[in-house]
């Protein structure tokens, strides 16, 4: 019997030899992009790794509750209340998926090198080779940055580390310089044009924005501001770009979208490439897209949209006085006959951020309250808005089988308004209050252009949003900018990380807990310690590392 009898080839899989060519490198790069949606595959389970970061960015902050019932996904409630223990499965979802993205970037870079250095076979042009390297490094920077924000102390593995050596890489090194280096490489090697003309690829604008963001997280305000200004200059004025285009499947990848996770429904109707990470936030009950009734906006968030007579936010937290609670706490006829208070003075962005009783929700009809809610007594009376799409767009944009809450809606990781506000923040921090004021007001003027919600021809609230007249001083400017970030970017996954980088997570969340817990007692008693600025390393990863990974202090 010859040796040939025992020589077999893998079925439906490729070997190193077969992936050492230019086509394979391009395909591996697509694979590297593939983790932008926060999941390798599978619909259920990838919640915490969603590009929207609704779990760590919003539920862990003061903007939203995990929702559903208390005992359903109790470990999500642990994250909300900052009682996370290292075996929490959502930590693993975050960790595993983003490291999958990183390994794909590294594999692309490795194979790129193999192809370019081989003595025969087709090679990439130097330009495309540099561009591929830049794309892969940009993606790697993004994946590492998301991990860093959640876990802080993470092992850094790049394409030069052999797989066999990777398990023993410790997590005691500051990875921000490496993240920065990847974004710098991307800035230097990408152009304004999207590589290969693909809207879903990263370009220099995205790289500059992200690099600026990383600078901002390190308080390198001046360096960041330079980049943000370049980005702003390169794009149309924000005021000319409709706010709603950011959350509309028909206007994706428009000028405001700078870095976005591309989502699509598979040709067969499958949802694995769609925004499955947000699926638990699908509404409930009789809603046209009903799933699990998670991700309920907080009273605190909703009330933060209330405005003064001047159309400005209540920076002094006075929005918490006499809070608006929709029909929460009502019963019997009072509840049945509840009418939305149309005199409530709010920023119009509220009703495109939050669904509340009595106000039209997308084109689904007027939000009926409890009928669309899982457990309003626990999760509150509100639902999220930005992650759901119009009913008219369901065909072709939702997962088959009536899974209308899994959609092809892109999720912006950086959009222009974010850059405006980051630029404003950098300017304020570096003393340029005029520039800061101008950028904040760009955002607010644009907000004033949002079509107002009406029922029977009447506005459903006393909508009002006005520009600031002036920033009296740096502190006021920063308060205003921070508040504006909350309003503009609410439920888009920024809030918790902003609070942490501002160093105010403890005071903000504990005071939030006191307020929110006063309405729904489940949220009272939040105790925020230093360790809670980030989350524990998943226990299984520590177990697997054989001592290379050290648990974050305090966990």
């Amino acid at each position, binding site marked *: 019997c010859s040796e040939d009898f025992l020589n077999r080839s893998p079925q439906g899989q490729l070997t190193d030899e077969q992936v050492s060519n230019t086509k394979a490198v391009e395909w591996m790069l697509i694979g590297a992009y593939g983790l932008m949606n926060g999941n390798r595959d599978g619909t259920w389970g990838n919640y915490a790794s969603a590009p929207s970061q609704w779990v760590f960015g919003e539920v862990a902050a003061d903007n939203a509750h995990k929702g559903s019932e208390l005992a359903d996904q109790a470990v999500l409630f642990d994250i909300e209340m900052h009682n996370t223990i290292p075996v929490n499965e959502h930590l693993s979802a975050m960790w595993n998926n983003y490291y999958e993205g990183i390994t794909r970037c590294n594999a692309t870079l490795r194979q790129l090198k193999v192809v370019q250095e081989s003595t025969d076979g087709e090679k990439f042009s130097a330009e495309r080779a540099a561009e591929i390297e830049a794309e892969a490094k940009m993606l790697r920077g993004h994946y590492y940055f998301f991990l860093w924000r959640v876990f802080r102390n993470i092992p850094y593995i790049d394409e030069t580390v052999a797989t066999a050596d990777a398990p023993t890489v410790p997590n005691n090194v500051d990875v921000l310089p490496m993240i920065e280096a990847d974004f710098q490489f991307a800035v230097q090697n990408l152009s304004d044009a999207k590589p290969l003309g693909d809207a*879903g690829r990263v370009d220099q604008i995205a790289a500059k924005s992200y690099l600026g963001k990383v600078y901002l997280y390190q308080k390198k305000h001046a360096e960041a501001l330079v980049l943000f200004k370049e980005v702003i200059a390169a794009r149309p004025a924000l005021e000319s770009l409709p706010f709603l285009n950011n959350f509309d499947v028909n206007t994706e990848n428009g000028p405001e979208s700078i870095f976005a996770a591309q989502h699509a429904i598979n040709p067969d109707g499958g949802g694995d490439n769609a925004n499955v990470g947000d699926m638990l936030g699908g509404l409930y009950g009789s809603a046209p897209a009903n799933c699990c009734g998670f991700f309920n906006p907080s009273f605190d968030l909703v009330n933060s949209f209330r405005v003064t007579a001047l159309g400005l936010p209540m920076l002094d937290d006075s929005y918490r006085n006499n809070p608006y609670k929709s029909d929460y706490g009502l019963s019997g006829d009072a509840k049945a006959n509840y009418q939305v208070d149309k005199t409530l003075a709010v920023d119009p962005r509220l009703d495109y951020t939050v669904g509340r009783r009595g106000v039209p929700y997308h084109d689904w009809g007027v939000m009926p309250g409890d009928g669309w809610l899982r457990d309003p007594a626990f999760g509150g009376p509100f639902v999220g808005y930005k992650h759901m799409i119009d009913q008219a767009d369901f065909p072709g944009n939702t997962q088959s089988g009536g899974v209308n809450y899994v959609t092809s809606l892109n999720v912006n990781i950086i959009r222009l308004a974010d850059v405006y506000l980051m630029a404003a923040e950098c300017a304020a921090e570096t003393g340029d209050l005029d520039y800061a004021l101008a950028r904040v007001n760009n955002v607010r003027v644009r907000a004033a252009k949002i079509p107002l919600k009406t029922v029977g021809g009447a506005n459903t609230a006393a909508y009002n949003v006005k520009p600031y007249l002036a920033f009296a001083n740096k502190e006021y400017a920063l308060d205003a900018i921070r508040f504006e970030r909350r309003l503009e970017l609410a439920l888009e996954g920024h809030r918790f990380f902003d609070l942490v980088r501002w160093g105010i997570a403890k005071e903000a969340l504990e005071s939030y807990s006191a307020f929110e817990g006063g309405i729904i007692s489940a949220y009272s008693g939040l105790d925020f310690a230093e360790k809670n600025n980030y989350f524990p390393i998943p226990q299984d990863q520590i177990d697997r590392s054989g001592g290379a990974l050290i648990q974050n202090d305090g966990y």
Partner: protein
Amino acid sequence: IVVFSTHAKEADAQGVLDKRIELSAKRVTIKQMIASLENQSGAHFIYSSSAIKADRKIKTADLYGDLSDVLNQVFRPLGIGYKIENEKVLLFSVFQDITIAGKVTDAANNGPIVGAAVKVKGTDRGTSTNDDGQFSLTVQPKEVVEVSYVGYVPQEFVVDNNQHVYEIALQPSLSTLDEVVVTGYSAQRVKDLTGSVAVVSIKDLKQQPAASPIEALQGKATGVQIINDGAPGATPQIRIRGFSTINNNDPLYVIDGMPYEGKLGWLNANDIESMQVLKDASAASIYGARANNGVVIITTRKGQKGAPKITFDAYYGTQSPQRNRFPEFLNPQQFAEYVYQRFKNTGDPAQAPGMSETTGTNYGSDPDNPVLPDYLLAGTTTGHNITEADADPAKYNYAMDPAQFYQITRANKTGTNWFDAITQNAPMQNYQLSILGGGENSTYAISGGAFKQEGTYKYTGFERYTIRSNTTFSFLDDRVTIGENMQYSHTRGNGFGVNVNRAGDYQGEGSPIGWAYRIQTIVPVYDIMGNFAGTRGDKMGNADNPLSVLYRAKDNSNNSGQFFGSTFADIKLAKGLSFRTTFGLRYENYHSKSIGYPNPERSEGSFTNNTLQEPQGYNSEWTWTNTATYKNVFNDAHDLTLLVGTEAVESNWHETRGYGNDFFIAGDLNYYYLNTAATTRAESEGSEGSLFSIFGRADYAFKDRYLVSATLRRDGSSAFGPDNRYGLFPAASVAWRLSSENFMATAAWMDDLKLRAGYGTTGNQRIPTFQYLRRYASGVNQSFYPIAGGNDLSSGLWTNNYDNPSVKWEELKSINVGLDFTLFNRTIDGAIDWFDRRTSGVLYPVPQPSAAVGTGSSPFVNSGDIKNAGFEVSLNYHYFSPSGDDDAFQFDAGVFFSRYTNDIVELAPSVTEQPYLTLRGVTTSVLKAGAPLGAFYGYQVAGIYQDDADIANSASYENARIGGFKFADISGPDGTPDGVIDGNDRTVIGNPHPDFIYSVSLGASYKRFDINMFFNGSQGNELFDLTRQYTDFYAFPGAVSTRTLNAWSPSNPNSMMPSPHAKAPTIEYQSSSYYVQDGSFFRMRNLQLGYTLPADRMFQGKVSNLRVYASVTNLFTVTGYSGMDPEVSQYSSDFTAPGVDMGVYPVPRQYLLGLSVTF
């Protein structure tokens, strides 16, 4: 004077012998002497000169007397006898050969025994019986003739020179020592075995009607642990001498010479003649690379020469779920009080019960006394909020549109017993017709069987149809034998998760059994209009109605058609030398269908999901084996058998899966085709592998007394890279039959005593192939991305399997010492074995950190060493009546005892302590040096925090509370206790391996009655009852165990169960010793009562045997385990986490009536 022949005298009618003779001394030839005698007596002598050597000269003294005196004095010393026939004197040599004839029959049924050996003792003269059981043999008087046949007690008789015809009736042997069994490419007598081999004969198998032949192995062989599960058609889990690997621990099956890896649900137990379990390496290593987990050799029934024997077997019965073992849950009122208590115990007035935020609408607003609602749901209104108007049936609308859907569900205030609701008494039946027979040059065995078992969980079932044909043909004077053994089987599993090839679908949180733990008892099975009721409502959790899950899966099916067969040719090339070639083929074609329906009554249900899944695939495998055997006996003392062989195996698997969703109509099976779905998707997958082996074997016996056996096998496997492709597996064993030694001759009570010792190496390669290669894949869900920004996906690649270039064979070295004994005229027999098995380089896909491999599959690595050591004792007692009468009382008793200890001796340097099997954050098991494989892992409960001081003074964790678990402070980051409970404090909290397993079988017969009883048990193993996560810790708002009635409270301070608490930290239900319980049990597995009718008389000989029987299985179980069944089969066969109970399918009790008739 010695009377030489009384017969001669009697025949002397004419008084010839009384004639007077007078002869004087002289030297004459015999011929001359005869002439003189004829002369004097007048008698005529007849003789053959050559026979009596008449030309010999003899010298005689003077002779006076009767002729008879003279004949006696002269001829007798010369060995010449005489006889009077027709007044003539017949002379003959008394040493003359005589020819005897005879017939050998079975004492039990008087049927002829074909091929029985008839041999003159102490000589090499012998013959065997023909098709009618007859023989003829030339012998000399006084010689001892031995008649023997496999399976019968040998008989001896002394040749009487006057008796020429013998009738010998052989008693069936109660000893299996003489049985010839197949032990790896050759056959051996049981008494000659040198390795550890358990032999189970058909008689034992038939005592337990069972879907799977493996089930019937239970308690029939020491060292073999069978764990049953109750799913219809399920193949139980079999473990031989512990767990040698972390992967698949299933043994290798060799069915009629053809190796097979997999489950045996397709094989009909009635078709099996015998099974041998090769337990130690010295016996099994001839199977080399695949023998680590032991080898089970299965021989199917073969034909026998003779007239066709037609047998019909049937049984019918019912299975009842063991209802007394169903979990006990709080009734709705108790449940409401439990939920109230959860909030009361927070001590937070804002979290008081009776509010919508806390206890919701179901129990009213009284903070102290919950009041059960009349309705749970009416449209979107819940609990006490529902008015009569809301509950108006006119509003009911079961529309599959969330905006229109209006369901009205009454509360079941007395509580639904969900386990009652989803279980049933289920019928089970089996029919088998077989025809066995043969002619002079051929034998045949043909059978057909049908088996059908419904599940004790509703809407599940299993069916199997089998056809088998085993034939042999011999020609050229029996020098060439060709034959075939073939089976075609069709199996069909119906309903949720019934798949004979995989345990586990029906386990776990998403199964109907899992849901039954997770749904509140206040939920009725049906709503007011008879549609399924569910968890849609207020704070009802997210369980699916378990009956709806079963019902909606009722049309799901798994169909498999498998051909399994081999054909062989056996050629006798020269004396003692034979060549055999066998070509076997397995081809399985399978198809399954599963359909999904909307489940709007579920809290997280769907209104529109209507799906079809259609996997279809095949497994094909061929095995070609060639062996040459030389067998000879030299000088009557040296018995030598040499065997060399080669074997090639090639296997292929391919599966195509189609998925469809959204059909024009739901529920019409005739309409469900993929092309009728609105959206479809297809996938396919496959694998292939090959194995080539060369092997040899030598068996040598000296005077049956000293036995030596050696085997060597070299395997090449496509599973490994070029550098590690080949494995060499040697083994040797010796045995010493002490009972044959002269110094034991005085111990007549000792029939047989044999000491055995063996050592050998086996291998394991049962891992996915190509672990040595890094592999990349392209998949729409895994690596595609809509890079262009629209809905179009672009193809991408990802690394889905990481590589370990140095992966190599897993090796098991085993030593075995054993003693076989048969005592007191075969009334007692048994064996004692001691073994030590060490697996080195255990193959396991050690999960790598995600930082290294992302979500790709970690490669298998040779991860460490596992040791299984232990001993086994089997002891049988046989009482058979001295009269040998069939009707007399007979009694057999057997006791089997097996013990092993399992330890992970060390882990490879690349592997540290490795916890595994995680469900909802509870990680149950661990791989850890010094601990047994699959040891339970978690926190050690040290008590319950009694008060604040207790928390302050004890090691604790964040949010520790009064009434919560106090865990033992085992360690800190630096290896010493640090007062903080965290991941460092996890420790080994239980051992899933038993201290020992045992079984007792009792059988008796008297006249026409027979009775058999079989008991088995396991002692000292622990079980991890993971279902407590739901029932004891409220991990979901589902059913709550009545155990919680004894939860800790200030007035019940000694309870070891945490008090209910709405804000209990999640660490409380992490893996801890709370889940771990003693899993010992003792079970009466089987009771069977049989009656053999006097068929001969009743049917005028047309029916030769007719037996009816009644049997009960699982009559009782003694156990302290609180789960549904202490027999907990592991979740997945290639992922060893033994003893974790995620909600097993319990073994039902079966009542059967059976009939066996032979024509």
